[in-house]
């Protein structure tokens, strides 16, 4: 709308023509001009359309600009009030009160508050008077729960005060119930007078309001009356407050009484939303029976659970994770001493258990040493032991045991509620390193670092044989699902993406910079062999248009060969063979030189990559993962990708290499032996060197009416935000031609829901065209998703691999025990995937886990 718009000069001709038309319809055109334009119009229909549009607009503008010949006015009443408003000096008067009558859209809350305020003053006055009276009466009746007295009257009044809202009326049943309640209180004091007064007040304040609202309040109040009859004062009051929409204005003052002796007053220091439930203890077995994997599931299925928060009989400790650590979440009973200790640590813990809400304020309730409840469940051990504990063990209740590995660092196994967050976005990064590392660790019975387990690298270690798309399709998607073998109401969904095969002439020239670790540890024969094989594979993939720079590094980096053409790269092998391996490992310097060289031979149209081959951790120079990763990121922004190849498993700095290759948009391989550097590796390498899809991101949008909750298994380090999906500046993984990538979700479908599970979107850069490609597929809802043991072999493979990874991640023996249930399925897999080493490896790993868990 701005004259300063720079109109496209290419369109000046058209613009000029349009201007003429506008002038014409404005009556500016001469007869000659008019005739000419008429002619032009018949020639160009679009001009005719334009003319009509302009005429329409003119009409509108004319009407807009002209003064109203028949002005509309607001209804007189409203108008008068409004004018009054606008003319009034004080801004306060703008409160909707005066306009309330005619404007339903203006909030009633403020008005309600105002009225409530005035009510409360009157009540307060009445309360004061009666308080005075009762103070006198009550003094002789004071007893141990001293606080009881001074509060007893006030809550009653305030409660009524709440109910005195102008908009609600106390229906007669309420009044009657109120009287019942009052009678109960007469056991303590004689307040009949006060009550009657209050009721009278209530009746005075009756006002007509909508029928529904009264009923609503009425029914709400019924429940609360029942509560009153049973529970302590305070809880009921608070419940009423909530219902009435009050915002705890008096909450701090209205603590109600806090008995230290009765069970009722202390054990439950919560807001009860469902008071009628009895309270029971939930041992570990039930968690297993229900198949609950986290506390949400647990409490859903269990109708009664004991919840007392810190001040109750519970001690609620820190981070939740999984079934295995369920007892830690749900808390454990303990004697006073331990409870205090745990209190200190879990102070700010807020345990949210449906249907109760427990607030963990330092409300030292009753923590018993003496009841059976406290004794039955030891704080430390697993819940499985707890149910079987006997008295003798209890005498020496052990101290709370801390998990060997920090639970906080593990990914959360909580499901995401679809209604809250229906979108799941991540970078489709595939690798298999974690699987191999775990395989080795299990084989040698060595320590498995749980934080290094990446479930996506487990189930992506396999070739599922999904169909390859046609070349013009670029990417295809294959989706299947089955019921979760170990959890109720959950399905596992396997989403597989596959990239099309490379077309002819898809090869870009390569500019490789190879950083070879020549530190002392690389002297080992097996490592030497592995490196040799790897380099052979690499060299075999190079052509005359490619260039390789070789840098050896130990304490210092050394440029061994610069920009050698691919067809002469065989020499590199000789150079490597003749380079002695000695010294420490200074990764920082190596990366620096690597970057320089890569930049030196950088070429826009080529694949520019740095490939790092190393066996171990950097022990010289800067070894800070983050900083090194940042420098890698800088390179990536310049267009240089970064691959890492770990040689040997021992001492491998998996975390470092994973981080670097992730930041560098490159691959991460691990070669344990020369055999690993086989044809498969060569293929991977080849594919990686010429990615067919870059910045590959996956986004799944779940349908909240069909999916209650979901969980992406794995890809923890690759999660993205929803908006990153279409933000092409946000980098993501690469996929090679014919490469497949799988994602496994655990979903909780709603059989009564509507629609499909959701939609899958994939978005990536096609290097051959330089364009972004985005495709989507439906994630269908299968009402009769097959049971796991009847699912397709590929589904079973992915599922078992994923579950194995998760079990290893959690590191709980109970999980391992459950995993055994999958054994028959796993054992049958090699039959479906003949001659597949990886599948055989998986079976072996399962067996090893079984052995370990039996110990």
């Amino acid at each position, binding site marked *: *709308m701005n004259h300063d718009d720079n109109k496209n000069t290419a369109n000046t001709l058209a613009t000029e023509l349009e201007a*003429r038309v506008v002038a014409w319809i404005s009556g*500016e055109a001469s007869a000659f001009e008019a005739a000419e334009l008429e002619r032009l119009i018949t020639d160009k229909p679009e001009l005719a359309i334009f003319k009509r549009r302009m005429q*329409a607009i003119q009409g509108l*503008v004319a009407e807009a*600009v002209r003064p109203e010949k028949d002005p509309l006015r607001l209804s007189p009443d409203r108008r008068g009030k409004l004018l009054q408003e606008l003319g009034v000096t004080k801004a306060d008067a703008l409160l909707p009160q005066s*306009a309330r009558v*005619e404007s339903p*859209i*203006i909030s009633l809350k403020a008005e309600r508050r105002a009225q409530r305020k005035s009510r409360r003053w009157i009540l307060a006055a009445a309360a004061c008077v009666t308080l005075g009276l009762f103070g006198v009466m009550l003094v002789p009746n004071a007893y141990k729960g001293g606080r009881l007295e001074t509060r007893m009257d006030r809550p009653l009044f305030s409660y009524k005060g709440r109910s005195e809202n102008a908009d609600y009326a106390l229906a007669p049943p309420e009044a009657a119930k109120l009287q019942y309640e009052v009678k109960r209180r007469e056991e303590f004091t004689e307040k009949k007078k006060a009550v009657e007064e209050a009721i009278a007040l209530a009746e005075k304040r009756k006002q007509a309001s909508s029928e529904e609202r009264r009923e609503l309040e009425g029914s709400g109040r019924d429940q609360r009356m029942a509560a009153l009859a049973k529970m302590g004062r305070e809880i009921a009051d608070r419940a009423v407050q909530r219902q009435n929409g009050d915002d705890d204005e008096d909450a701090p003052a209205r603590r109600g009484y806090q008995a230290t002796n009765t069970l009722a007053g202390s054990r439950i220091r919560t807001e009860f939303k469902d008071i009628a439930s009895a309270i029971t203890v939930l041992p570990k077995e039930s968690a297993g029976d229900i198949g609950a994997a986290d506390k949400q599931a647990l409490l859903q299925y269990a109708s009664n659970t004991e919840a007392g928060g810190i001040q109750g009989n519970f001690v609620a400790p820190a981070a939740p994770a999984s079934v295995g650590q369920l007892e830690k979440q749900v808390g454990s009973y303990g004697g006073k001493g331990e409870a205090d200790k745990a209190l200190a640590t879990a102070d700010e813990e807020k345990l949210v258990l449906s249907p109760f809400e427990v607030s963990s304020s330092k409300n030292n309730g009753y923590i018993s040493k003496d009841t059976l409840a406290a004794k039955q469940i030891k704080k430390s051990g697993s819940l499985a032991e707890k149910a079987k504990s006997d008295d003798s063990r209890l005498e020496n209740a052990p101290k709370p045991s801390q998990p060997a590995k920090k639970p906080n660092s593990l990914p959360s196994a909580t499901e995401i509620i679809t209604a809250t967050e229906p979108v799941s976005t991540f970078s489709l990064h595939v690798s298999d390193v974690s699987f191999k590392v775990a395989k080795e660790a299990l084989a040698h019975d060595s320590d498995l670092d749980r934080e290094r387990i990446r479930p996506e690298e487990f189930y992506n270690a396999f070739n599922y044989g999904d169909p390859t798309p046609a070349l013009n399709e670029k990417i295809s998607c294959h989706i299947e699902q089955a019921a979760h073998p170990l959890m109720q109401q959950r399905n596992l969904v396997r989403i597989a993406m596959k990239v099309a095969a490379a077309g002819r002439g898809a090869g870009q020239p390569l500019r490789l910079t190879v950083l070879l670790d020549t530190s002392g540890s690389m002297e080992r024969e097996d490592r030497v062999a592995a490196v040799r094989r790897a380099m052979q594979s690499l060299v075999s993939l190079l052509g005359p248009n490619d260039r390789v720079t070789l840098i050896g590094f130990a304490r210092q980096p050394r440029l061994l060969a610069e920009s050698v053409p691919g067809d002469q790269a065989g020499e590199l092998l000789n150079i490597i063979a003749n380079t002695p391996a000695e010294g420490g490992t200074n990764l920082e310097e190596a990366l620096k030189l690597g970057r320089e060289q890569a930049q030196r031979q950088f070429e826009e149209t080529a694949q520019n990559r740095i490939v790092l081959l190393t066996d171990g951790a950097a022990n010289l120079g800067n070894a800070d993962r983050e900083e090194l990763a940042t420098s890698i990121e800088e390179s990536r922004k310049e267009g240089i990708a970064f691959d890492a190849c770990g040689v040997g498993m021992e001492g491998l700095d998996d975390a470092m290499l994973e981080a670097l290759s992730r930041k560098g948009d490159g691959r991460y391989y691990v070669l344990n032996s020369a055999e690993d550097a086989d044809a498969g590796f060569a293929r991977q390498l080849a594919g990686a060197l010429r990615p067919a899809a870059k910045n590959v991101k996956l986004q799944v949008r779940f349908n909240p009416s069909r999916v209650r909750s979901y969980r992406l298994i794995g890809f923890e380090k690759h999660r993205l935000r929803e908006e990153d999906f279409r933000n092409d500046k946000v980098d993501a993984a690469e996929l090679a031609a014919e490469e497949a990538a799988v994602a496994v979700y655990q979903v909780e479908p709603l059989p009564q829901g509507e629609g499909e599970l959701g939609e899958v979107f994939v978005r990536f850069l096609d290097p051959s065209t330089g364009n972004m490609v985005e495709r989507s597929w439906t994630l269908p809802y299968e009402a009769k998703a097959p049971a796991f043991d009847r699912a397709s072999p590929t589904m079973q493979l992915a599922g078992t691999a994923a579950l194995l990874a998760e079990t290893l991640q959690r590191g709980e023996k109970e999980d391992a025990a459950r995993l055994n249930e999958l054994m028959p399925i796993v054992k049958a897999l090699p039959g479906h995937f003949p001659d597949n080493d990886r599948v055989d490896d998986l079976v072996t790993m399962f067996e090893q886990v079984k052995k370990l868990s039996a110990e």
Partner: protein
Amino acid sequence: MESLVFENIPLPSAGAVKASLPESMNSKPANIGTLFEAEESGLLRYAIGLVGRRMVAEELVQETFLRLHKIWAEVDNPRGWLYRSLRNLALNHLRDNPKEAELTDETAQSEATLPAEMLGRNEAVGMVRLLLAEMPESDRSLVRLKYHDDLQYAEISKRTGLSVSNVGYRLHHVLKALADNLRHAGIEGSQG
């Protein structure tokens, strides 16, 4: 909130040319009361065009004025603000009350239910007013001279000092922009 004392004195006209103009064309009237007098009808029509119901329209207009009143001092272009704000309130209302039956409230009898075309036109005209109010003053004065005063290009050129062809070019520009903006707002043609 500052306290403002409003006097119900209309703004003295600044010059001969402007003397004939409706108050609303100036950038900011002295007080909201004047603005109200000038814009009440137009806004009401617009609101009716948007929501279709007189009662609701009146509430919306009322609410809009009240809101403007609160932030009067901060608003540069109150006319544009009014239309924008009214539009937003109306859209919010429509979004929150999608299934309101047309004829349930008592005001249905108080006026003939406006035919759809009328509503559409009201909405379109209101939108145009909104856009006009948000235009730069130079454009607005051109529009005013052309469509309110019904002047020929030559006359306009004389008054504004622009060349005739420039006048033509600019008017064409303005109309085109208005048309495009209306289309973006979902209003096609003149019938809404």
